């Protein structure tokens, strides 16, 4: 983990207010593992004050890639930066998905929740057969489709809410059928809270080993401020940044 001065190599604007950033950050790139994230200072002024968390999409030293949607002031400021601009990046942070060798693994990605799962697939789809369920609002928001389809040993199922690509509907609507056909032994998921809560419901009783990567509002990203607390089943809290962001799906107390 380090606070590294990175430099943007390429900033690409995509449909749906999404952006893809390629950043030179050799030390972080060398250490990054699937599931890890970084904290980025989006401004050199004192406003906004705090860094913003971003999952690492992929890492090929000396570069890392971030894929994000503009959601508020921080992401908007980041989207205004371009090639050649410097960025303070803290990372890599957080834990990783378990590797699960020899197991049949289903990846479930909702929208920008694709980020850590793309990274996982990229590292593991070369030597382990993987299934991927990738859903979003429309074809225009499933930017990583092309890259995914070139990964060896990865079988993908695509869903869009408007039916513009793949099967129409939420990915959870097609999940039962895929599980019945493929009988995965484990699932790794990331996406909107409602999707993860629905998965937690659907996976009861537990037939698969399930892990989810969580998103949270973070102050520091390295376990110090305790802002990113998430409630777990015994009613205590875990820090998403330091004890996560990957947790066993069943361990989280999901909103009902």
């Amino acid at each position, binding site marked *: 983990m380090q606070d590294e001065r990175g430099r943007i190599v390429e900033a690409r604007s995509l449909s749906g207010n999404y952006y893809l950033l390629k950043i030179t950050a050799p030390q972080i790139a060398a250490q990054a593992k699937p599931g890890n994230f970084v904290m980025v200072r989006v401004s050199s002024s004192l406003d906004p004050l705090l860094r913003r968390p971003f999952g690492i999409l992929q890492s090929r030293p000396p570069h890392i890639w971030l894929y994000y949607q503009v959601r508020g002031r921080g992401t908007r400021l980041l989207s205004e930066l371009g090639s050649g601009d410097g960025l303070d990046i803290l990372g890599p942070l957080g834990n990783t998905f378990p590797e699960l060798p020899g197991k049949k693994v289903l990846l479930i990605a909702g929208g920008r929740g694709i980020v850590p799962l793309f990274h996982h697939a990229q590292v593991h789809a070369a030597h382990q057969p993987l299934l991927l369920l990738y859903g979003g609002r429309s074809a225009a928001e499933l930017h990583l489709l092309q890259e995914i389809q070139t990964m060896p040993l990865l079988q993908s199922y695509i869903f869009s809410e408007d039916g513009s690509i793949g099967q129409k509907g939420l990915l959870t609507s097609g999940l039962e059928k895929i599980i019945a056909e493929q009988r995965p032994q484990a699932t790794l998921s990331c996406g909107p809270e409602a999707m993860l809560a629905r998965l937690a419901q659907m996976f009861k009783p537990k037939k698969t080993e399930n892990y989810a990567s969580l998103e949270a509002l973070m102050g*520091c990203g390295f376990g110090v401020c305790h*802002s990113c607390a998430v409630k777990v089943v015994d009613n205590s809290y875990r820090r998403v940044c330091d004890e996560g962001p990957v947790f066993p799906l069943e361990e989280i107390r999901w909103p009902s």
Partner: protein
Amino acid sequence: MAELSVDLGFLTLKNPVITASGTFGYGEEFLPFFNLDILGALVLKGIFKKPRPGNPPPRLYETPAGLLNSIGLAGPGSKKLQEIILRLSAKTSTPIIVNVCGEDDKEFGEVAETFSAMNEVAMLELNISCPNVKKGGACPAQDKKHTFRLVRQVRKKISKPLIVKLSPNAADIVAVALAAEEAGADAISLVNTFLGLAVDLEKRKPVFANTFAGLSGPAIKPLALKLVWEVCRQVRIPVIGIGGITSGRDVLDYVLVGASAVQIGTVNFYEPAAAVRIIGEIEVEMDKLKIKDLSEIRGKLRA
């Protein structure tokens, strides 16, 4: 070469920069970023007798150049902290300050006794000013009589130097500071966070479950600096200034109004090695301003 050391009377610090409670974890989290030995001292995250889960989320709300927090002093309890201190003291020679909390006066006394007995602890900071424990933000430091009673009780029980951390949310912070001094405090630290309110316009409800939360960061610096100046003019014991420090110049501002040392807080969240930069900047600024020793400007504000 500028002289950065600070004599508090009961302890000499190699420089005036102390990392503030609640913003520096238990010290260990910062080992990847810098050698803790460079710090004047470090204050651990506030501790109660028993483990505390902290407040329900959301716990954080960003404001212009600042942030509101309602963490609620989540922590592992005093038994576990003793183990952490033993580990930490093996890794640094910097004085370790324990931030002592309590649900009531009795607990403050018990926790203070526990850590006063540890050789690895240099001093205690009595946290009578956290706004996130009781609903509405009430704390002992809002009342000079309660402050006097509580500080005197703790003072009688412990041998270690005692810092009392004050709240900017008291009606008369100078009166509270004088009460702490009279009750036997060795130093005063101020300020803890300012009570603030954030609302959710859509839901027409406060953002935080506790309604109010504590504001910190550069936004509060002028407010804090004023209170530190007012307290410094009235008390005789050393004062540790806290509030919105992000640079070496900020540190010198606090020294100019009378602070013996400072604590840096929120900056640690977004710049983990901020202390290293700030200590370096103090030296550069002192050379630029031809200040050889901090005592030359301490309390020398012409007003």
